[in-house]
């Protein structure tokens, strides 16, 4: 590659219509004409979709044709498209870090849909800034890392067991860490699983047996993960069991800590005897059907309310299943389900719902504004269609309570630096594009730790998380982005301002020298530390002092 001195900067600008997303609201010709007037710009072109195969080829062709040393794309968000355009530059022989993007869609055309003239002026400004910044970019290279071809799975319920099994079968060493004394999680507390009316122990015992036989899988029961350091490919995890700490090196971590069922203390007279949860009923059914002849179930107890706004989704299926089992044990038993909305998604579940009605299970809808009242031997509920309160005899009341997050979810979230939502469930990297990955590389999630799931979903997610993790483990080496912060030890005053704001734990303070240093592997180049530079010691990979902040803000 030729020498890229400041005098030899040749910028190519590609302005994207994004179909009508940009071209429908901005004057594209004006943007093209303006870009041609900018310093160092030698080539400008408009594309219908720069991200299409045709658009990418245009970039790849223009680089040698016009001898481009910088590429600027004015289009959508770098969050989704920067890697694609950087890849195109690299394929055409240009260092991918000599690429810059102007987000004239999310930050301009979508915002100024009714102001074509002023919006166009604004987009000109954004393109001008990107071109100016491009001129100051420097060549960077990716950082190559070795990795440990092992996995740690936290949680030995059905999703964690499935993940561990899949990775073990692929030939990777797996440490499966379970806090209780046996594998199986919530499944151990269930009675029978529909539609096959199978005891869940069949599934648990089969999987546990195969895990114990698999030479690649080490099962740690009565154990927890107490510490985790490092980064993708190179984590060091401390497993605490029987009062002893063991450290293991691992390439990936799967969070499969599951959930627990809410105990509805203080709700509907819950006492664990006459008023029980569905989970309590499962235990009763294991010992044979209860003698109760009038059973009333109440749905959405402690969920879809102000305190817990979400729908736990599996409680409807559980209630219908248990109603069927009660009816099949004794058709004379009266079972009434008081509900707000029934969630019976899926072919088999709808069939189950229909079967319950054929067996005579009664369904009464209630309004959360006037919820049912549990009194001695009866449940009173305002019947919406009859327009009055009815009394249903009840010698057993079953409350359908939601799956809630594990108590340790917060600690694990802090330890692994992965987020949880307001209810303590772990948040995936992207709801559609990365449903089983965390935003942190090398850490994955599955099962109830993510959201209440059926057994089928927990197993699928466990297998899926294992497959995602295997993408990392299948590599001989890893490459991380060259865009990282750097701290000048001569001007660093050791104020630790940058350490406080770094969300990735990427900055270490060296007390002996009184300066901070960036771990280039952990650093994501987010730029959060830039404003903290008391003496401008932290700088990004270009010499522009605001590079890192603008990069973050442009997303």
């Amino acid at each position, binding site marked *: 590659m030729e020498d890229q001195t400041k005098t030899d900067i040749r910028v190519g600008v590609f302005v994207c219509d994004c179909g009508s997303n940009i071209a429908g609201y901005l004057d594209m010709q004006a943007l093209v004409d303006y870009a041609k007037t900018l310093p160092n710009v030698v080539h400008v072109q408009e594309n219908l979709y720069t991200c299409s195969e045709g658009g990418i080829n245009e970039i790849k062709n223009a680089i040698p044709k016009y001898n481009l040393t910088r590429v600027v794309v004015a289009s*959508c968000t770098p969050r*989704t498209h920067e890697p694609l355009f950087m890849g195109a530059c690299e394929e055409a022989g240009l260092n991918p870090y000599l690429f810059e993007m102007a987000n004239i869609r999310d930050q301009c055309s979508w915002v100024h849909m009714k102001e074509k003239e002023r919006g166009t002026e604004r987009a000109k400004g954004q393109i001008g800034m990107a071109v100016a910044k491009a001129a100051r970019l420097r060549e960077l290279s990716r950082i190559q890392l070795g990795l440990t071809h092992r996995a740690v799975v936290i949680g030995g319920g059905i999703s964690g067991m499935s993940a561990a099994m899949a990775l073990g079968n692929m030939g990777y060493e797996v440490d499966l860490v379970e806090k209780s004394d046996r594998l199986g999680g919530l499944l151990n507390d269930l009675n029978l699983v529909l539609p096959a009316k199978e005891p869940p122990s069949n599934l648990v015992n089969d999987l546990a047996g195969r895990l114990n036989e698999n030479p690649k899988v080490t099962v740690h029961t009565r154990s927890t993960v107490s510490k985790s350091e490092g980064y993708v490919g190179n984590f060091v995890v401390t497993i605490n069991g029987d009062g002893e700490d063991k450290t293991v090196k691992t390439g990936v971590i799967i969070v499969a800590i599951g959930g627990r069922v809410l105990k509805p203390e203080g709700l509907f007279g819950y006492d664990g005897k006459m008023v029980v949860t569905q989970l309590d009923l499962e235990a009763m059914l294991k010992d044979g059907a209860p003698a109760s002849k009038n059973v009333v179930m109440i749905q959405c107890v402690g969920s879809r309310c102000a305190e817990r706004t979400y729908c736990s989704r599996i409680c409807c299926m559980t209630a219908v299943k248990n109603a069927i089992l009660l009816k099949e044990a004794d058709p004379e038993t009266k079972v009434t389900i008081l509900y707000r909305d029934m969630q019976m998604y899926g072919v088999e579940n709808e069939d189950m719902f229909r079967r319950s009605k054929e067996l005579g299970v009664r369904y009464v809808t209630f309004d959360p504004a006037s919820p049912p009242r549990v009194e001695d031997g009866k449940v009173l509920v305002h019947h919406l269609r009859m327009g009055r309160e009815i009394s249903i005899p009840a010698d057993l009341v079953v409350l359908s309570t939601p799956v809630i997050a594990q108590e340790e979810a917060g600690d694990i979230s802090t330890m692994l630096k992965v987020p949880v939502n307001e209810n303590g469930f772990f948040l995936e990297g992207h*709801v*559609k594009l990365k449903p089983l990955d965390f935003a942190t590389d090398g850490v994955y999630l599955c099962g109830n730790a993510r959201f209440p799931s059926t057994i089928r979903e927990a197993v699928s997610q466990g297998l899926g998380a294992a*497959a*995602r993790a295997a993408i990392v483990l*299948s*590599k001989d080496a890893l490459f991380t982005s060259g865009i990282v912060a750097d701290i000048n030890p001569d001007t660093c005053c050791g104020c630790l301002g940058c350490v406080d704001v770094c969300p990735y734990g990427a900055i270490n303070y060296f007390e002996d020298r009184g300066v901070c240093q960036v771990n280039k592997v952990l650093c994501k180049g987010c730029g959060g530390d830039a404003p903290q530079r008391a003496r401008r010691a932290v700088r990004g990979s270009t010499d522009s002092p605001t590079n890192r902040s603008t990069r973050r803000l442009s997303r």
Partner: protein
Amino acid sequence: MASKEVLIIGGGIAGMQAALDLGDMGIRVHLVEKNPSIGGKMAMLDKTFPTNDCTI
């Protein structure tokens, strides 16, 4: 030795994701789609909840 190639029938969102993940593991994938372009139902949508991403 078993062939390290995978055939995926259907180029909708599920088939595409499977193909990408397998490809990222270094496995050769043949993705077969009956229509002229991949994307399936997903490609017919504009924006999807809850993130309102442009689906295409």
